[in-house]
């Protein structure tokens, strides 16, 4: 139990922070209800997937700057494919786009391994390329989406045995997020691949000597990040109903949430839960600032400042742990 606390102290602290923010929200706005929470979760969805993508890569000791561009590309692809198509066609579109994200992510990893150019440069270049590709697919926001996909994140699911008042606080979007993250993350965490991802991020030489196939593991880490980014792209289309070719603010947000979530930028440490809670913290903070009737642009400044400070703090911690 003490170890659990020690190893997850950061996550526990974040959860407490989240609860405090919820209480603050209720104090600021006593009417804040289940419906508001539902829209919060819908707003969180794309951020959460972006963060999941970034988390996997950062744990493997890398960084993926192309994550927002990848989301834009997958989002416009899904939107333009489903525009005017039948409801059933979406059953084909979703796996197709997911596979596309996975493959493009793998290409990122492959380019890093083959060219030996640092990941930060490679993913910067693929950021340009994916952005360009998104513009080629749709040069302005547009496209459409199947109704059933849209409905997947609206409202709640009645769960038998749970009173409606509690059920109202479990929106579909939250369930979807939880299910999708778990489907990928839990098996990964338990597999040798997952261990290998942590190993190459923690100490690449030691991992190599322990018999870890370093190149293959790195490619897989980027591929999984691509898969998460594709989920993020589809969720973007799900919540807006269209696809937008210009990437949203997900890159810096993902890095900030990763750092805030207790994943060291050097790699090898942390899990998925921390960053996901961190995303909720950051979004809820935004809600609170808005509820306090602060100019939304000031909110953007506050948010940006928090992210920069968090990243600086993270870099500082990494620096300290290296020098000691």
């Amino acid at each position, binding site marked *: 139990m003490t170890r659990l606390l020690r190893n997850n102290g950061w996550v526990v602290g974040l959860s407490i922070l989240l609860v405090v923010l919820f209480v603050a929200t209720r104090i600021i706005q006593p009417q804040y209800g289940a419906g508001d929470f539902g829209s919060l979760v819908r707003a969180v969805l794309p951020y959460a997937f972006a963060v999941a993508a970034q988390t996997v890569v950062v744990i493997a000791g890398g960084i993926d700057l192309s994550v927002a561009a990848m989301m834009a590309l997958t989002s416009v692809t899904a939107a333009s494919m489903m525009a005017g198509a039948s409801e059933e066609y979406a059953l084909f579109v979703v796996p197709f786009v997911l596979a596309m994200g996975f493959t493009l992510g793998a290409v990122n990893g492959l380019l890093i391994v083959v060219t030996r150019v640092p990941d930060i440069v490679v993913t910067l270049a693929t950021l340009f390329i994916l952005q360009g590709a*998104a513009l080629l697919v749709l040069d302005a926001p547009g496209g459409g989406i199947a109704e059933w996909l849209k409905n997947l994140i609206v409202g709640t699911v009645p769960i038998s045995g749970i009173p409606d008042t509690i059920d109202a606080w479990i929106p579909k979007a939250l369930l979807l997020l939880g299910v999708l993250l778990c489907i990928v993350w839990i098996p990964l965490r338990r597999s040798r691949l997952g261990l290998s991802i942590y190993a190459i991020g923690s100490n690449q030489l030691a991992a190599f000597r322990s018999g870890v196939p370093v190149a293959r593991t790195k490619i897989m880490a980027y591929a999984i990040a691509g898969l998460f980014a594709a989920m993020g792209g589809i969720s973007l289309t799900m919540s807006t109903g269209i696809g937008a070719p210009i990437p949203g603010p997900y890159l810096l947000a993902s890095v900030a949430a990763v750092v805030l979530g207790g994943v060291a930028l050097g790699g090898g440490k942390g899990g998925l839960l921390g960053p996901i809670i961190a995303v909720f913290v950051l979004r809820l903070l935004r809600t609170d600032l808005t509820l306090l009737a602060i100019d939304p642009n000031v909110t953007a400044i506050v948010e940006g400042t928090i992210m*920069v400070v968090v990243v600086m703090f993270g870099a500082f911690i990494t620096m300290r742990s290296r020098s000691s």
Partner: protein
Amino acid sequence: MTLATTTPEAAPLGRRIKRFMSDYPIVPLLVLLILLVLVLQILSPGIVNQRWIANTVKFAIPLALLAGAQTMVMLTGGIDLSVGTVATMAGFIVATQTVDHPAGLAMAIALVPALIIGFTNGIGVGVFRVHPLIMTLGTSLIGVGFLQVYQRTVISAGTKYPDFLVWLGTGITWGFPNALVLFVPVAVLLIFIQRRTGFGRLLYAIGDNERATRLAGVKYWQVILALYMLSSVLAGIMGLLYVGLIKAASLSLAEPLVLPSVAAAVIGGTSIFGGRGGYTGTIVGALILTVLTTLLTILQMPEGARRILFGAIVLLVTAAYLRIIEDR
């Protein structure tokens, strides 16, 4: 540890060509520029005349200025993605402040955010050792936020462009763009800094081997702080010039030039890993990109394809430089 024992005389032809290209990257670049102009002339006969050249130079100058800031930063192995925001802020602020204040004061006010952002970047990268890319991206987002807030406070006042900046940005005298009055001294100054000052020497050395500079007694954070402030000021000046050229202050004034500024420096032979390159190459790189843009417009290439091209160029050129460096 590899011991390079080769002497220049004994190297095979292929390696000699590579070495020549890395020693004088300006030569193949000029060849490429001339080729592009030729292609343009063939595709659209008669387009290349005095007016076209003056216009091309006029539009290349803002890009070259922004790429100048980028070059300085890249010499140390960094990158500055906040230059777009800084330039936009300077341009937007000068356009709105000129309404109430004399042009000189407005320009001074417009450069204040540049100093602040440069300072913040310098502290983040130099002291806290945040990766420059993340740091400058972050400050640029904050800058955009401030700009949006600022916009709402001045939205009713309208905009006005100082005559001097308009003259500088758009004017052409005896076939030469007036912007050269600003650009030539700045370019000379940058090249002088790179080649003939202690600061310039440190930029190259840090990009090449930071550890070695530390052993030689260099304090990293001092150099980095000065560098990012210089970069921001350059970007700010570029913003002033650019708003005079475009005459439409918007919140995304210089943003579309950020990626090309990186590409111009990379094409010009400045290594994204640091330690190698210089401003002369970047100037040619900016010209190449400007001509290339004209070419792509004539070919009716969409914006998306252009970005893909920029991305591919950055990746390919970086990988190629890596091979050239490793080969020795």
